[in-house]
């Protein structure tokens, strides 16, 4: 556990350091949101219909942005060698990296999401469900993303490749989260999709570190 807390603290410090991580993702999120009315026309009725789904989708996309830094930096500067010879197994390190990514990237995105949704014209009453989905679904995005990031170590085209690997895997969480938000807005049963999202995120959090560690070992070998 000591090893886990050590690496978690380091990952958190690194992802917040220099403002690169969260600021970049938040900026991307806002920029995309500001383009939506420009692309669709600022007709409120049309915006209300698409705003929640759009905000959710772009949250998923924004969480892709800093994935490349998740393993690549440690791989290139040799820190991954050191981490592999430490007190915690690589699976633990992978878990810590995923959680740090979640705290530094998707957490702030989830907090920003209701502002984006409301700015696009959706009712304020959607805010709680949007934040909840963002925080829970964000776990899926971070850990699935971590699988893509670790698998593409040592490849020639990191960023695009990660997106190509990861986006199809995002299908279930995107569907469940959007379903929960939509059902909440329509006063339908939103608990079922939210529970599905929880289940998927928990499974991703539990299983993805194994794939990430296997991929990292493969890259180091």
């Amino acid at each position: 556990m000591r090893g886990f807390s050590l690496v978690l603290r380091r990952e958190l410090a690194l992802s917040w350091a220099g403002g690169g991580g969260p600021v970049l993702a938040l900026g991307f999120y806002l920029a995309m949101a500001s383009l939506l009315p420009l692309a669709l026309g600022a007709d409120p009725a049309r915006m209300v219909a698409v705003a929640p789904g759009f905000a959710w989708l772009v949250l998923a996309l924004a969480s892709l942005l800093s994935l490349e830094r998740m393993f690549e930096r440690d791989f290139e500067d040799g820190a991954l060698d050191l981490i592999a010879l430490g007190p915690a197994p690589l699976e633990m390190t992978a878990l810590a990296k995923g959680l740090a990514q979640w705290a530094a990237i998707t957490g702030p995105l989830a907090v920003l999401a209701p502002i984006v949704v409301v700015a696009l014209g959706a009712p304020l009453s959607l805010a709680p469900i949007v934040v909840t989905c963002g925080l829970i679904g964000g776990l899926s995005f971070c850990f699935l993303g971590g699988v893509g990031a670790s698998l593409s170590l040592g490849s020639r085209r990191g960023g695009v490749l990660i997106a190509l690997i990861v986006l199809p895997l995002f299908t279930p969480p995107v569907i469940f989260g959007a379903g929960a938000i939509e059902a909440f807005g329509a006063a339908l049963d939103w608990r079922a999709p939210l529970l599905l999202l929880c289940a998927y995120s928990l499974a991703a959090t539990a299983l993805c570190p194994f794939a990430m560690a296997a991929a990292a070992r493969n890259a180091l070998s």
Partner: protein
Amino acid sequence: MITAISIESLAVARGDRALISGFNLTLDAGEAVALAGRNGAGKTSLLRAVAGLIRPSAGRVVFHGEDGEIAAEDAVARDAHLIGHQDGLKLSRTAWDEALFQAEWTGGTTASARAACARLGLGKLLGLQVRKLSAGQRRRLALARLAASPRSLWLLDEPMAPLDRDQRGVFGQLMAEHLAGGGLILAAAHDPLPIAARPIEVGGGENAG
């Protein structure tokens, strides 16, 4: 605690190319081995295979402790240092943050990390960002974990390349103390090590060990 390692007919391949085959070596407590060989002969791969990062295509590495054989994974995770070509330092962090993490990660403490940094002459640099340090200073920062956290087996890959003569002297002392305390050193080095070390040629086919 690792008291001896024996490498038994180890073979390492990279891609379709066999780098090392039938490599034998026994290393006892208090002993240092200097791996020699031309570039690309497989010295780095050998060290990484001993560290368990590369899976050998044949043969094995056995770690012996006071009470017999230790599982390789436990042995390297608890009791081996690997200093590679890269220092594993983050440019955006301060030298002290990085030295402390490296020391704590390998089992050292704040006090031992501070003492190790002082020993390697890094005291005044610790508040600086790593990006401000020279190559030699960065290497010394990485070497500090050798002194900060007591681990028996040192796997060193060209540890002295960026160091100047005085620093090599300090590093030599560090290695001599480690050996005197029953440590083991397996080092790849083009330049002769500043300590007495048994030379072993890598990449010349099978060896007698």
